């Protein structure tokens, strides 16, 4: 087959330049009334890194799922290396040379790297032969692409960055020459992200084609050759990366001009509102997560906590909000100590003046099967205004919800709609409206803009700064370093349960990178 010959030659011929690796023509897909992809055309050139950006719900993931065989398109044609195909399922996609690295890794934690790589492609009933073959192939891949991982290491002993490499190796081992990566840097430190980019560049130079889905414009600018922008299920356009800028891309994504920089004045810190003293938290299975952490947050300032996900931020938030009893230490709000007794004192902490926007709105902040108005009072249902005695005043609760819907511009403006039917950004607004519009002294907020559209990010950031300017204390935890730096007045960096250092938001990216890897930049 001519196709394969072209694919196997190291030097791409003229024909390869012309025939694109992936060509989508008029692809449409709808889920019930929601049209996720509308007449999408996308051409991905061979030997290139092609970025796809768009807000949440723009249809990026759906499009890639169609390409990877998870969904079937309602209409349109897919051409892989110039040949029209009907991709039936993911193993068919792999046969066509399309591999995918998911946002959440699909690895068996207690298997070795080698076992994970042959999983699903075992070949013989006896594993010895395929293991030996895989070991040889892995050595070759490591040599060709700089993808070094110990084949005998157990997955759970690896770092997140290494796990991601295993995922990439898995796809390459199955013969993928078009590699789709879905938000690959969400779980990586800046250094690990840089390493990943180097690997991707090398893969491209060795003849592979990379499709990178992300919402981080900085990454698009840093690594891609071409970028396609999606908005509300349509393809807005494809441009060469060197001809565009983050501002232009953001405008294409949202459809209007967006302020990427957060504008704020200098903070005027007042009294200490939140004091954390020698706090240690051990999780359910006895692993220490927060180790002797002390800091305070004053009225009128935003203190940010930076760090790679999983370094104790979640447990810190849970302890401060009264959801989880700490092992040691003390937390004071307005000088009053939180008394931990029983199974959770989150309601009492709320009454002390703390509002909490949790990291994960689906897991914690909302009951997605409830109607919007019910979530609008979650945690506050005991308030007098929602009814006297044991009874719930549905009328009062819905009126209160409507007030918040208007104030935070939540759409659609329907308190009776099931919460799951709101978009990610609007769901986050439901949580913010509930927590921010009340008599509070301190707001603790985790990942305020995770999975939120650029347009809504701007709004959420403004609200947080407005709260600070009203003299409230804000503790912000985010894994988005840019977000922490642009919003915070002071930044604490967390690593392995400890606060490594405090940095000014203006500190260099290198300093943050070192601190997030657990090294105190001051001692370097």
């Amino acid at each position, binding site marked *: 087959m001519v196709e394969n010959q072209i694919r196997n030659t190291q030097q791409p011929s003229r024909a390869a330049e012309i025939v694109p690796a992936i060509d989508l023509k008029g692809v449409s897909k709808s889920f019930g009334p929601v049209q996720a992809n509308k007449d999408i055309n996308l051409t991905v050139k061979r030997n290139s890194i092609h970025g796809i950006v768009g807000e949440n719900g723009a249809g990026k993931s759906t499009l890639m799922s169609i390409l990877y065989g998870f969904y079937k398109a309602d209409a349109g044609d897919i051409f892989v290396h110039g040949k029209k195909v009907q991709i039936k399922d993911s193993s068919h996609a792999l046969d066509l040379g399309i591999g995918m690295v998911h946002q959440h890794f699909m690895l068996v934690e207690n298997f070795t790297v080698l076992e994970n790589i042959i999983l699903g492609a075992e070949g013989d009933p006896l594993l010895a032969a395929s293991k030996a073959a895989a070991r040889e192939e892995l050595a070759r891949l490591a040599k060709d692409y700089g993808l070094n991982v110990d084949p005998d290491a157990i997955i759970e002993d690896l770092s997140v960055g290494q796990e991601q490499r295993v995922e990439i190796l898995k796809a390459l081992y199955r013969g993928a020459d078009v590699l789709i990566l879905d938000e690959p840097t969400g779980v990586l430190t800046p250094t690990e992200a840089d390493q990943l980019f180097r690997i991707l560049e090398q893969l491209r130079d060795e003849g592979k084609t990379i499709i990178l889905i992300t919402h981080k414009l900085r990454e698009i600018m840093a690594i891609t050759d071409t970028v396609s922008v999606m908005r509300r299920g349509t393809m807005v356009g494809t441009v060469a990366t060197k001809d565009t800028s983050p501002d232009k891309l953001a405008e294409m994504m949202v459809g209007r001009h967006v302020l990427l920089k957060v504008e704020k004045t200098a903070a005027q810190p007042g009294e200490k509102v939140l004091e954390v003293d020698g706090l240690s938290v051990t999780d359910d299975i006895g692993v220490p997560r927060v180790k002797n952490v002390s800091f305070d947050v004053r009225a009128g300032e935003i203190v940010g906590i930076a760090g790679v996900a999983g370094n104790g931020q979640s447990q810190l938030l849970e302890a401060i909000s009264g959801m989880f009893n700490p092992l040691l230490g003390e937390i004071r709000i307005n000088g009053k100590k939180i008394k931990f007794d029983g199974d959770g004192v989150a309601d009492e902490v709320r009454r002390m003046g703390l509002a909490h926007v949790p990291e994960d709105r689906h897991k914690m902040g909302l*009951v997605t099967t409830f109607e919007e108005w019910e979530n609008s009072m979650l945690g506050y249902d005991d308030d007098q205004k929602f009814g006297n005695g044991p009874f719930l005043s549905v009328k009062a609760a819905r009126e209160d919800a409507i007030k918040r819907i208007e104030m935070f511009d939540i759409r659609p403006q329907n308190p009776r709609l099931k919460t799951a039917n709101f978009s990610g950004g609007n769901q986050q607004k439901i949580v913010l409206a509930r927590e921010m519009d009340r008599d509070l002294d301190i707001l603790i907020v985790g990942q305020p803009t995770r999975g939120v559209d650029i347009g809504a990010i701007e709004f959420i950031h403004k609200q947080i700064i407005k709260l600070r300017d009203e003299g409230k204390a804000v503790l912000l935890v985010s894994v988005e370093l840019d977000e922490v730096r642009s919003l915070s007045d002071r930044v604490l960096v967390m690593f392995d349960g400890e606060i490594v250092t405090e940095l000014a938001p203006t500190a260099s990216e290198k300093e943050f990178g070192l601190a997030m890897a657990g090294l105190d930049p001051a001692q370097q």
Partner: protein
Amino acid sequence: MSARQPLPSWALNVLMPAMNVLLALIVGGLAVAMIGENPIQAMQVLAYGAFGSGYGLGFTLHYATSLTFTGLAVAVAFHSGLFNIGGEGQAYVAGLGAIMMALWLDHTHWVFVLVGATVGAMTLGALWAAIPGYLQAKRGSHIVITTIMFNFIASALMSYMLAQVITNPGSNAETRTIAETGRIPLLSEYFEFFKHSPVNIMLFFGVVALIGVYILLWRTKLGFKIRTLGQNPEAARYAGISAVSIIVIAMAISGALAGMMAVNEAVSVQKRLVVGYVQGFGFIGIAVAFMGRAHPVGIVLAAILFGALYQGGSELAFVMPAVPSELVVVIQALVILFSGAMDEMFKPVLERVFGAFRSKPQADKAAEIEEA
């Protein structure tokens, strides 16, 4: 290929259960045909036996009342995220509370017996359910396992009590009969229509329980907390809802509701407590709750259906002796199988049907609304 379409609520809550019941009756009819009897005739006898006379209807409603209580019991626990399999044991132990109060008060007036027995039944039912609830909340002992175990404990305990402790001397493992003065009246005493049928005042208690559960779950703060815990335990923890107390309270309410059956069956009709009086109604309550989608409106309909199957089934065995009583149980079991265990069998098919019939312009319009 047409896309699957999320089902509208009427299709999900009315059409699908109706199709399940219909399928169960068709398969049951096939079983009747297999033994050489006329399935149409059998179904007619079944329907007439359940609804055709005041006598039949009285029995149907009496069974439906018991099933309403046990069905609501499962539903309340289910809304808090717990699968209470122990309605059988809770109703059984509640019988002890009910009969002790009744026997204590039966020389006063039936109104006192009614109130006393209800309080006694609810208290012991609540207690018997709260223990597994507490074990689940505090110790993490799985509620399905513990409630099943508690059914066995209840059975052993009650056998002991009825044979050794509150037994009526001379008779076999049962209490003495409630005195005339304390007997809760049957509806047949007021309405000739229900002559010879056991339906009684507890029917109205059933209606009150249905409304009460609706108010509890959707119109009180406690109900909001119960539902929050059931739908998303992490969100409940975030909201500061104490899982331990909500679980214990929800289980207690559940057990109290199951216990109400004792007043309907043992106190009002049998007028004494006999060994094994619950006769599986606690278990059928699970099917009732599931078929009724854990909502009072659905539960009342499901309870009437299962009550009708019970009554119509015994009529069938009586009128068509060639149909063995085991086959009647098979028909009942088929309804439970199709509307309980294989509840969502038709869902994928219906979703495709709805997808195919959905007109294109309508889809576009909906998409525009999304964007606006």
